[in-house]
């Protein structure tokens, strides 16, 4: 199993969700983060002090999937999040040796879905 972690532009979340649902991936965990990447920050000025915000608002999506689901998941994310502009974000794929459904205690692949 793998844990797919994606960092995307906040306003692309609805599209990514849509793309994932279409690819019939319905389980995910979403949280917010700020990130620095190629996308350069913007300047804020507060009371005359200019400060560059180089940590930009991003949305983090975590999806645990069985190995054969990795590609569809990644593709769905790309489909929903890509604009071709810097800042589109990244997808990281981690190994997921085990997974447990708290409700039933099921383990492994059974617990993913």
């Amino acid at each position, binding site marked *: 199993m793998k844990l797919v972690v994606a960092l995307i532009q*906040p*306003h692309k*979340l*609805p599209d990514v*969700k849509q793309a994932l649902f279409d690819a019939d991936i319905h389980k995910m965990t*979403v*949280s*917010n983060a700020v990130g620095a990447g190629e996308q350069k920050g*913007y*300047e*804020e*000025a*507060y009371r005359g002090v200019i400060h560059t915000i180089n940590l930009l608002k991003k*949305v983090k999506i975590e999806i645990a999937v069985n190995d054969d689901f990795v590609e569809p998941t990644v593709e769905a994310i790309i489909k929903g999040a890509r604009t071709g502009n810097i800042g589109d974000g990244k997808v990281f794929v981690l190994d997921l040796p085990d997974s447990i459904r708290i409700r039933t205690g099921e383990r492994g692949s059974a617990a993913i879905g």
Partner: protein
Amino acid sequence: MFIKRWTGRLILLMAVVACMSSLAHAQATADEAMFVVNNTWMMVATFLVFIMHLGFACLESGLVQAKNTVNILFKNIMIVAIGLLTYAIIGFNLMYPGEFNGWLGLGGDKVLTTAADAAGTLIGYADGNYTYWTDFLFQGMFAATGATIVSGAVAGRIKLPSFLVFTVVFVGFVYPWVGSWKWGGGWLDQMGFYDFAGSTLVHSVGGWGALAGALLLGPRLGKYYGNEVRALPGSNMPLATIGVFLLWMGWFGFNGGSVLSADPGPVSFTLVTTCLAAAAGIVASYMTSQIVQKKPDLSMALNGALAGLVGITAGADSVSVMSAVIIGLVAGVLVVLAVITIDSKLKIDDPVGAISVHLVCGMWGTLAVGIFSADHSVVTQLIGIAAYGVVTFISALVIFSVIKAVMGLRVSADEEQKGLDIGEHGMEAYSGFQILTTD
């Protein structure tokens, strides 16, 4: 009014017997006292109308998304400033002209150049009801409200400078010009059209501007997704609630002050109709929201209070208490249905419900005077409503269109997505707070 006439006669007696005794002094002092208390009341009313601007600022910033909060606050503080200044420079004279053909006029003293101790400060200026300065400030505070109503409906997508230019023209010319038709003693006034404190002259006028703006701008991104209507929930409900309470508070001065004297009977009666209409509006909108939406929506109850207040504004002094309650109830139902229709059926994106509250209920209130008050005719009221509707809506459309052509109206999609706070102001409203909009 009865007591007032009485005083009127008494004042006159002074003139009659004055020539003789120290009576003159006694009476003068008494009239003087009456003048001072009337003026004091009008000043208090002015403060209350002022606080309505804070009310609008809170309501609107509470109902927009967090990323557009600084922008709406900025608009609201600018509106007060621009409103007062333009009203001082031009609006006041345009609205209350000296010699006046009934359609368009400009006369009277100029605020900026009148001396502190001019005749306007004497008891004679308004039959001992208030001074020239109180008059200006009270009217000036009124004036700015029109533009504030608009700001809510165009929130989240309009360019700041474009909106400010609109404000100058709208408050500087349109509002006082059409206002003069009734309150300046113009043609509608001569026709017998009645609008006590401005259901039409202030609220509908603002509402028409709001409609024009919302139409020309189109909805916020992500509001309508194909056929699906998306909710973009307000970010700070306590703030919105503060706004409504402050607006209600302000209405004591808005309606109570429109009696233009502290005359106990009419003023206190006006306050009662005002409050009961607001109360009825809340209850009715709660019921309606409960039925239509299954669960009672706070923002609807808040709009309901305003609906009742806007509705009673035209007839607060001239309908019975019972009628006031009915007017409020109807307004409360109307506002909920209007919000839903405009948002989901007509697909006009009005983030704070300004059109439903001020335009729809403003028209209802003006009409209600014809229905519930024997002294006024439904027909004349309808003529007034129509006249203001046509002229104000077209004017607003024209102004916005010109601005659109010259300097553009809407921010870029990218800026809109990041939020106007960062785009227009380069700052955040809730710095450090983690905000995540999940859909």
